[in-house]
């Protein structure tokens, strides 16, 4: 059992076990045919939006850079296929607000002509910094849903000794099977990507965590990992939110990421299996991140599937390919049912972080009765993997006491949704916390602005007073001069 014999139980406190619904786990990954148009939002990652480097109407080749990273934390965007740029304009973003965001619209020409790439002879021989840089250039972001630029997380090793790289194959969200399929179908590719990341980070130990409900994936990855010492597959209990970074570190190593710090601060970095696959594709084949595997599922989908989808494909194309709806969907989701975004319609592009497209029927969404009074049953307390008291936080948010909610640990909430999931009174706890977090940010910003304008107003007042004083001084001076002149004249007259 290796390092784990010291840890009696692999797990974390709290959490929930929603109906797994892995209905698509035996369906092989199929490529989705190239759609008529691709919609590539300039922001598909955490950080600042990418900046377009191509002109309107330009012809681009597959893998060509379309937008370079913006300032600070950001990631570039590449062309999934060859074609023409027909517009760069606002388009509905895959985001709960349904607001538009600047988007590059690419019309494929059907030739899928690649641009030239220079491949390293042996990517495993590359220096760690070079690997990280190439991952950044390939536009790879965390593909488990968070979409944090991956290169940044590979560079965290610099200055901080990293002992363990955890590969997250948990896939704890119900329905989603894209990581499961990836591990089952392409274990060697995934393993090579993992080892490249291990080299970039400098960790001596790699733990690949896979939930117990994916025995074939565990077997496939274990077989592929045999040649590599230091790479170990760990079967973890099927419990949501196992795939959350903090919970995974706690479950595997018994360590907790200190509040306000990163996993890297205690020597642990977590990456998703799909990210490992993308890293391998970028370094071995020079393919930037332009496609991903998406699970299309849910009770309303006629034929669920695991599809390899060019980024920028509209969700409606995926649904059409899967035979449309077999019944009226109650909710359309990008991502899993616990943390995914509800879509207002299907004309929304698949982006780097989209691991699933779900169409859920009314029964699957569960009873949608309206919020009732809290009976303090504290199921939310038991479900919270962070040890928070969601009922107390929500009560404070509801009465507008954001500081009180913050005092109860609002800032530590990871919005995993476990509390809302269990609440028998149907209180939308997670929604309250989303609102409260935004409200705290808004208040901070407003306060900063009011302080700024106050300073400006004071500066202006001071300037006005100074000007007035100057004016007065000048007037006084002029008066004095006049007086002096008159006096002199008078004296002149006298002397004359």
């Amino acid at each position, binding site marked *: 059992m290796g390092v784990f014999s010291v840890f009696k139980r692999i797990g974390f406190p709290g959490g929930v076990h929603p109906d797994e619904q892995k209905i698509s786990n035996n369906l092989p990954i199929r490529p989705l045919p190239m759609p008529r148009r691709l919609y590539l939002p300039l922001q598909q990652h955490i950080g600042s939006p990418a900046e377009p480097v191509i002109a309107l109407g330009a012809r681009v080749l597959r893998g060509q850079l379309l937008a370079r990273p913006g300032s600070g934390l950001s990631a570039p965007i590449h062309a999934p296929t060859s074609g023409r740029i027909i517009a760069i304009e606002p388009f509905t973003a895959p985001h709960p607000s349904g607001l538009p965001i600047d988007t590059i619209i690419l019309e494929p020409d059907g030739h899928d002509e690649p641009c030239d790439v220079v491949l390293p002879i042996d990517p495993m021989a590359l220096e760690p910094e070079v690997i990280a840089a190439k991952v950044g250039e390939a536009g790879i972001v965390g593909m488990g849903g968070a979409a944090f630029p991956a290169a940044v997380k590979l560079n965290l090793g610099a200055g901080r000794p990293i002992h363990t790289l955890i590969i997250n194959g948990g896939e704890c969200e119900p329905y989603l099977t894209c990581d499961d399929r990836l591990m089952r179908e392409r274990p060697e590719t995934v393993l090579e990507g993992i080892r490249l990341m291990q080299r970039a980070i400098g960790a001596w130990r790699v733990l690949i965590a896979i939930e117990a409900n994916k025995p074939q994936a565990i077997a496939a990855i274990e077989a592929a990992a045999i040649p590599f010492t230091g790479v170990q597959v760990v079967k973890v209990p099927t419990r949501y939110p196992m795939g959350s970074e903090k919970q995974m570190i706690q479950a595997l190593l018994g360590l907790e990421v200190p509040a306000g710090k990163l996993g890297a601060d205690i020597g642990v970095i977590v990456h998703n299996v799909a990210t490992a696959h993308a890293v391998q594709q970028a370094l071995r084949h020079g393919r930037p991140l332009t496609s991903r595997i998406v699970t299309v599922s849910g009770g309303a989908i006629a034929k669920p599937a695991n599809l390899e989808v060019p980024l920028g494909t509209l969700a409606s194309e995926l649904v059409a390919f899967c035979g449309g709806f077999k019944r009226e969907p109650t909710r359309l989701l990008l991502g899993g049912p616990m943390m995914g975004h509800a879509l207002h319609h299907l004309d929304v592009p698949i982006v780097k972080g989209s691991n699933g497209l779900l169409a859920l029927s009314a029964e699957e969404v569960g*009873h949608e009765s309206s919020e009732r009074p809290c009976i303090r049953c504290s199921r939310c307390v038991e479900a919270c993997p962070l040890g928070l008291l969601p009922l107390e936080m929500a009560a404070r948010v509801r009465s507008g006491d954001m500081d009180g909610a913050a005092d109860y640990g609002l800032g530590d909430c990871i919005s995993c949704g476990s509390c*809302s999931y269990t609440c028998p009174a149907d209180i939308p706890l997670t929604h309250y916390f989303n609102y409260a977090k935004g409200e705290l940010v808004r208040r901070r910003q407003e306060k900063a602005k009011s302080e700024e304008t106050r300073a400006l107003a004071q500066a202006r007042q001071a300037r006005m007073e100074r000007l007035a004083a100057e004016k007065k001084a000048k007037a006084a001076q002029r008066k004095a001069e006049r007086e002096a002149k008159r006096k002199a004249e008078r004296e002149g007259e006298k002397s004359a």
Partner: protein
Amino acid sequence: MMPIASPHTHAPASVRRVMLEVLLALLPATAFAVYQFGWPALYLLIITSAFALFGEALSLRLAGRPVGSSLNDGSALLTAWLLALSLPPWAPWWIGAIGGLFAIVVGKQVFGGIGQNIFNPAMLARVALLISFPLEMTLWTPPQPLFSATAPGPIDALAITFGGGAAMIDAISGASLLGHVKTELGRGLELGAALQGQPITDSLYGTARGSLGEGSAPLLLIGGIYLIARGIIGWAIPLAVIAGALLPALLLNLIDPEHYLGPLHHLFSGALLLSAFFIATDPVGSPATPRGRILFGAGIGLLIYIIRTWGGFPEGAAFAVLLMNSATPLIDHYLRPRIYGRERGGEPLDYSQGRRAARLERIRRGDK
């Protein structure tokens, strides 16, 4: 357009379901108690429930709130049921009526309705009744199982419940075991003598004098374990209540067996089991924090023991629950759980020194 927040799926749980599960768990013990005490007990149960539901509907209507959805969530019925179980089985109808109304209107709706009542409404009503009508509330009739020779029939029972049967009740009623023991000890007798003719098996099986819900220990236990297994209640409160009462009982009984009742008598007599599994676990008035629940339960258990042993009343479950209800906000405030990545005090964990640093170093090196 209002954005829809995650999660987009929900556990099959609702307030109504929780209440119905508790009622279901109470059913075996209640059915047995009704069998033991016959028709008057059944009438009392029905009257208490009817008045509680009426009180709920009336209050909601006066407050201008939707009556239907709140009424059928089962919470008022559960309150009424728990109250009825804590009453003398042959109590007159107006005890049940006043109790049911008081529990819901004063104990629950005045505080703001479901979820807002600091005190357990059933226990609040029981205490109010006990103080207002001490005579009626302490007339304990011996069990007269349904269809047995001495049991009143459905018509005779009407007389008992609706008046006119007072003589009959007086003739047969006596003290409950705990009351009897208290009186006898007060007279200077020793326990051995006081417990003459009061076999503990009567208390165990629920064939002793007492309120409806003091009934059968095994049936209450089955109901409680069912609730724990179904995840409706946690194990912490019931266990803490029982331990809180039995540990001091064991200790004092060992020291002075002639003046202090043993743990088994305490466990099977009175309302200890009913309180542990069904009353103390009422979520509204109990703490939400894991450690708080243990303290809360232990406090109830200990108070029950103290009141039984040294207090003015033979049984103190209702007082104990109410007292600890009032301590709940304080308990919750001081016993907040530790947040992930933080110390109990809220400071971020520090892995740079002490035991934590050593542990991190072990993991860093991969030591066993």
